[in-house]
């Protein structure tokens, strides 16, 4: 745990949370035509702050930062998934996942270069 934190800093946890959020958004998109389905999402900043705190765990952070989406315009069947919102957030989250991934890659390159002593 501590070694992992030293190696990857905030990015290890951020990548795990990004992946979890991707699953949440995929669930929302999958249920876009399910009557009565309530879209859910996490407040990413809050989740990351909880996950990186002293006794924070990923599961606890997710639970704490989870919330229901407030629809801009409610549908008659009680479904609160709005495709435009979900797709935008999904795309944004995918890009940010890639960003975190490249930070991690840079970190790994730094370490391996240091190990080789180049």
């Amino acid at each position, binding site marked *: 745990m501590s070694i992992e934190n030293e190696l990857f800093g905030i990015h290890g946890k951020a990548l795990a949370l990004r992946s979890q959020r991707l699953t949440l958004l995929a669930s929302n998109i999958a249920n876009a*035509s399910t*009557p009565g389905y309530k879209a859910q999402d996490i407040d990413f900043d809050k989740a990351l702050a909880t996950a990186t705190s002293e006794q924070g765990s990923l599961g606890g952070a997710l639970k704490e930062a989870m919330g229901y989406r407030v629809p801009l315009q409610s549908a008659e069947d009680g479904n609160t998934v709005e495709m435009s919102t979900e797709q935008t957030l999904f795309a944004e989250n995918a890009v940010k996942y890639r960003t975190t991934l490249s930070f991690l890659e840079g970190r790994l390159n730094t370490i391996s270069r240091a190990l080789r002593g180049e």
Partner: protein
Amino acid sequence: MDKPMSIFDISGRAMSAQLVRLNATASNMANAGTVAGSAEGAYRAIRPVFTPIAEKPGVSTVTVKEIVSSDTPATKRHDPGHPLADANGDVWESGVDSSAELVDMVDASRMYQNNVQVLNTAKSLVLETLRIGK
């Protein structure tokens, strides 16, 4: 611990559900305008009802709970020359609202495409993650 539901399970099953919906629409469109000899025998439009399968809060896929017949009534038409006509010379045309079916078809296919898109994005992210450090 159970194997957690992956993004591929979620989108894959959503695609199957949308395909059931697309099939139902196709059946309805194929039977639009068919004629029966009685009001009970006339074709009724079918429609799947979706229900979510939740694994944990926020993570859920979708499945078809049941397929219901719509209550669009069959239309009675007086056509004594029709071979299926009853004693009064009436036949019943199936209760299918073709424009509603067309709208449903477009909606189902768009939802299907959305799930394909999600699957593609997830796939490329997983592959990029696998390549890390190489």
